């Protein structure tokens, strides 16, 4: 066997987006020896793509805002399927985390009296999103990156984890490879934080970056951790639908927050017809009222274009089904008729460029064409709401890969503050756990040699499958069978297809050398992607109702029988068990906040 580079840490953080960086910073500030693994170069994580803002009840624009209101919006947005305690901790701590980011050098937009400005966003009852134009994610990631650099945290860039290592029942590290050389690398750790982000790349149409392949869900599950809410995948209502090369690319909700309106091919503002029962009375009834809101009339209610993402995505789909789609199969998003050219360019500079450069559309003069795109995973690794501990000893999870905060649908802007609040907590409690361990972490030789053999196998394979062919078919399978609108027959077809794809993934052959070989990376990611895809499909099959982001054609309404349960997907032998478990009960005083 070849030489292994080996590192030992108190806390190993896998993933260097917002959650991973925040976890690493916290662990380092608690005195832990920290190693940070990044699949890409540092500072390129998918967090940079976040546009609109960070939700936190700072009350700078609407002084009536409070953590209670943020909690209520988050729970109702998630259709009460959220882990209430996570949402509770989150809403209380988010403002502090945003202020901390400012103290670390983030430069937020200002209100006229010089405080951090906050913009309106879907599902939030007050202007709540601290923002940096439409580049909030970049500002946040760069600020965290700087903190990590100043604290001297060791970063392993372009390193892909293949498997988590176990010492008996607990996690004791991870093994992977460095992209540049193809060399193997071993990390021994007293505690591991998974902050690997989402799974958008399982779908053909997605807003997600290269890295969002859902590895973390599979790594955790294969190590024995429970996954919950895997059926809840957010399809953002506004992705680009043209030209072909950019289908799925995100158009920030900030466009609607700043006044943009949705129209169908007949020019009708159709969202007025899609206000769900739960939100009746909270949104404007007429275009006239919506226009008054835009002009800043405090008595006017917000326009229905700002309903939660699940509602808007389904409305766009429905307009299309009824023959009112735009030429490229979406809806029009029009801010040109609502705001001045200067306003649009200063508030939405990167949207302006994105459309100008990639689609030849000038959004200060013309409407954009938009449609749903796979954007965010609400479900994921089951964690303790306070410590972010998973169900496996020594393993923690934070950010998109962890589940519970968002329930069945996430509100825009809640992701960035999620990363900060729970990244910090994961780093803190992982360090506490590490400090309690005696002796050095143990890496099992048999697991190491098995992992190395698995990683080399695609070079030795006699199979004929190409890695990118299997990947393409997986993404088409998920899009077609486990997409926005699901039914039992389709999901079962999807599961059968996944099973065939697993066989094909086993026959993938890789050409070339081990140096920076994307074919090899893809070949090795396929089994993890397929594991995650299967968990999604299994959960989608079990939830026989429609709620939040999960829509079942045969069960169009929400069903009380499913209103207080999570589906837990758990590894069992070579497959999965799906178990229905009750949600943690909300205490009476908290329950009052959401009613």
């Amino acid at each position, binding site marked *: 066997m070849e030489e292994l580079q080996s590192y030992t840490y108190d806390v190993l953080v896998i993933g260097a987006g917002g959650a991973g960086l925040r976890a690493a910073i916290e662990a380092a500030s608690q005195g832990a020896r920290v190693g940070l693994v990044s699949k890409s170069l540092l500072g390129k994580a998918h967090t940079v*793509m976040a546009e609109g803002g960070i939700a936190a009840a700072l009350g700078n624009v609407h002084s009536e805002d409070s953590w209670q209101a943020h909690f209520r919006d988050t729970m109702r947005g998630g259709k009460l399927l959220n882990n209430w305690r996570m949402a509770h901790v989150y809403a209380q701590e988010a403002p502090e985390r945003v202020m901390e980011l400012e103290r670390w050098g983030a*430069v937020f937009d*200002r209100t006229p009296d010089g405080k951090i400005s906050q913009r309106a966003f879907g599902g939030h009852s007050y202007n709540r999103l601290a923002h940096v134009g439409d580049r909030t994610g970049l500002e946040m990631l760069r600020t965290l990156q700087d903190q990590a650099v100043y604290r001297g945290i060791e970063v392993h860039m372009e390193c892909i984890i293949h498997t988590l290592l176990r010492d008996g029942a607990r996690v004791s590290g991870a093994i992977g490879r460095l992209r540049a050389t193809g060399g193997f690398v071993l990390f021994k750790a007293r505690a591991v934080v998974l902050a690997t982000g989402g799974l958008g790349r399982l779908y053909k149409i997605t807003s997600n970056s290269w890295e969002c392949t859902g590895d973390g869900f599979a790594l955790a599950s294969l190590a024995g951790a429970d996954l919950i809410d895997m059926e809840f995948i957010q399809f953002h209502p506004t992705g680009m639908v043209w030209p072909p090369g950019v289908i799925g690319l995100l158009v920030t909700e900030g466009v609607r927050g700043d006044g943009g309106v949705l129209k169908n091919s007949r020019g009708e503002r159709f969202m007025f017809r899609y206000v769900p029962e739960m939100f009746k009375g909270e949104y404007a009834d007429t275009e006239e009222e919506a226009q008054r809101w835009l002009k800043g009339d405090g008595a006017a209610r917000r326009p229905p274009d700002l309903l939660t993402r699940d509602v808007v995505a389904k409305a766009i789909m429905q307009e299309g089904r009824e023959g009112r789609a735009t030429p490229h199969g979406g809806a029009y998003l029009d801010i040109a008729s609502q705001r001045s050219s200067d306003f649009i360019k200063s508030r939405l500079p990167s949207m302006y460029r994105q459309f100008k450069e990639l689609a030849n559309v000038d959004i200060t003069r013309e409407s954009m064409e938009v449609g749903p795109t796979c954007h965010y995973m609400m479900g994921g690794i089951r964690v303790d709401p306070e410590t972010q501990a998973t169900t496996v000893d020594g393993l923690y999870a934070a950010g998109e890969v962890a589940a519970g905060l968002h329930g069945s649908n996430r509100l825009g802007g809640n992701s960035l503050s999620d990363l900060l609040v729970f990244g910090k907590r994961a780093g803190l409690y992982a360090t506490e756990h590490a400090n309690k361990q005696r002796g050095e972490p143990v890496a099992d030789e048999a697991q190491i040699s098995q992992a190395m053999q698995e990683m080399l196998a695609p070079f030795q394979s006699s199979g004929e499958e*190409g890695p990118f062919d299997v990947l393409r078919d997986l993404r088409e399978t998920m899009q077609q069978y486990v997409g926005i609108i699901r039914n039992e027959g389709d999901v079962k077809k999807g599961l059968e297809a996944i099973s065939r794809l697993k066989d094909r993934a086993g026959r993938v052959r890789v050409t070339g050398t081990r*140096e*920076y070989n994307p074919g090899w990376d893809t070949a090795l990611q396929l089994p993890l992607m397929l594991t995650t895809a299967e968990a999604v499909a299994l959960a989608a099959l079990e939830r026989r109702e429609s709620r939040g982001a999960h829509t079942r054609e045969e069960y169009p309404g929400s069903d009380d029988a499913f209103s207080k349960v999570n589906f837990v997907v758990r590894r069992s032998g070579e497959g999965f068990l799906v178990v229905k478990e009750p949600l943690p009960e909300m205490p009476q005083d908290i329950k009052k906040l959401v009613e």
Partner: protein
Amino acid sequence: MDATFRIFRGNSQGGGYQEFLVPVEEGMVVLDAVHRIQEHQANDLAVRWNCKAGKCGSCGAEVNGKPRLMCMTRMDQLPLEEPVTIHPVRTFPVIRDLVCDVSWNYEVNKRVPPFTPGEGDLWRWQQKDIERPREFRKCIECFLCQTVCHVLRTHDQKSSFIGPRFLVRAAGLDMHPMDSISRTRFLKEEGGIGLCNITKCCTEVCPEDIHITDDAIIPMKERVADDFYDPVRWLLRKITRRG
């Protein structure tokens, strides 16, 4: 129609161009073509990319000799009757194919004196106070400015010059309304700001349209000149033995 691509294949030991034929679709960008080649013709073609939306700055390369982001370079802006040549950026060592080792930049970054806010100040400011630092904070770290800077590219003075990216970064920190330290000594002694002779090559390639030379480098050069070459300040420094 089809387009011909000449793509560099090789590693630190050397290499050469390989030709590929790719069908062109409406609205296609160069990175789409590279992906298509990777998917169908050369699975091991190495290319670094993340977002494919001009936001992460990973996919810089020299397209027909010009450093740019492949994800933001539309095919319909290129003369397709001739082959499209793609070469890795030349200022940094090749790892493989289109991927370069940019780790030098990360090492330089560690040396820039960090954001250092003053104690107990009121954190309030006006939007107009942050226009300048905000321009610099748009940087997506694609390192194309580093690539074209002749101090780094032609003269390879990486040991004495930090390059436009980190001059911009230092300027962004210096102009933050709450920052309380000066970076002029760092820029003069470690940063090598005097080596920049403002040819503006960096500004021309910046995909974020940051006015690197005019808005960052020249003002910082002026601050350095004020601090170190102003005779009154020089005398004060001598007397007080500070700075």
